[in-house]
């Protein structure tokens, strides 16, 4: 490969523009060719000023907790153990298979693929079964126009699908609330930063009732600081059992 081609490949890799065959070529070169890695590094440096222009968005504490538990589950790679002492006796076939790393890798891989296929199949049917909403609420705006549809599913998931042009003021979010106890305070079931379908968390909410009230309020970007609605309620509606 000419150096110009390699350099273009390196730059487009950094831009994330490579597709298909070229993407494969770049991945192979990254793994095997130190000159190519150096070209990539130079392009990363050139564009790195862009990364510094990103807004700082403080993550919630739950993100660190998830990272910590993943790190606990998958401990840091330990240094490779020293090579085993050379064997003197000639091993038998079974024994050599037993110590043959690639045999066990393949064996493990086949097992893993089978498990994945099984899991995917089970997931497929589980998804099919839970696709049907249990309850639906159409949330109406102040002007009595449908603003969003909220569906809840048998597996505890819920989805909010905005309708029409739901606008969220700059640097704000909308927060979805429900009233498990009609006389009690609302409970937050999700904070939404952009007008698109979102999953909501109903874990903290007891069994939904028909007629349960849902409401959406405008809140700061990371949600209400007080745990109760602080901004105006922009839409609301009650749940009813899906047909």
């Amino acid at each position, binding site marked *: 490969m000419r150096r110009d081609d390699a350099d273009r490949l390196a*730059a487009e890799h950094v831009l994330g523009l490579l597709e298909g065959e070229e993407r494969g070529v770049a991945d192979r070169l990254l793994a095997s060719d130190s000159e190519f890695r150096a070209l990539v590094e130079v392009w990363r*440096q050139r564009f790195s000023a*862009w990364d510094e222009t990103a807004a700082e968005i403080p993550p919630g504490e739950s993100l660190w907790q998830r*990272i910590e538990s993943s790190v606990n589950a*998958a401990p840091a790679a330990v240094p490779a153990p020293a090579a085993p002492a050379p064997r003197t006796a000639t091993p038998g076939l079974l024994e050599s298979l037993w110590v043959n790393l690639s045999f066990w890798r393949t064996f493990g891989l086949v097992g893993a693929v089978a498990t994945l296929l099984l899991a995917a199949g089970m997931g497929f049917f589980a998804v099919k079964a839970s696709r049907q909403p249990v309850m639906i609420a159409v949330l109406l705006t102040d002007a009595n126009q449908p603003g969003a549809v909220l569906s809840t599913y048998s597996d505890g998931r819920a989805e909010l699908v905005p309708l029409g042009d739901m606008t969220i003021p700059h640097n704000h979010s909308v927060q979805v609330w429900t009233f498990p106890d009609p006389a009690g305070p609302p409970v937050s079931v999700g904070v939404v930063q952009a007008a698109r379908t979102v999953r909501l968390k109903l874990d903290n909410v007891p069994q939904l009732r028909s007629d349960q009230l849902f409401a959406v309020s405008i809140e700061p970007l990371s949600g209400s600081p007080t745990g109760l609605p602080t901004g105006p309620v922009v839409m609301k509606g009650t749940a009813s059992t899906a047909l």
Partner: protein
Amino acid sequence: MKAVLGDVAPPASDLNRALGQCAKGDRLALRTIYDSESPRMLGVAMRLLRRRALAEEAVHDTFVQVWQKAASFDPGRGEARSWLYAILRNRALNILRGESRTDLVEDFEPMGLVSEEEDAEALMLRLSDKGRLKRCLERLEPSRRQAITLAYIHGLSHGELAGRLGVPLGTVKSWIRRSLVSLRECMT
């Protein structure tokens, strides 16, 4: 002078040291990196993925990889921060390009997407005047500058750039290639 620029990122040597500590199994060092870098990383991931949950997933996966690969980081081959963001961008672009395709299609896409996206000229203003990137991007024609910017910042593919800029795919590809040659000459 630095104070005027707001939050100043910790020097690279701190990150290098923290990565070295991670390689030895020091969890606190990982947390140190997380505390100093995660807000910016989430911002970068949000520009690519637009959805908070996906962006947090990318940052999560990045830190797990940082933990696992810290020992393979070689300060002689590049800067710690650039290594960190390379992992993040790879992860976010993989989520954007492959894994979440179906997920994104199921979504209610038509609303809010374009308005959330800062256009290339607004993004240019955020670049430091002193930096070479800004100076060299300014030499490009606006539409070519826009193509490069949208690709890097928002992760648009060649096809998406062609659609957004209203030009044929081949034109976008040659714009990008020529712009890269010009940037290389200007920034070397």
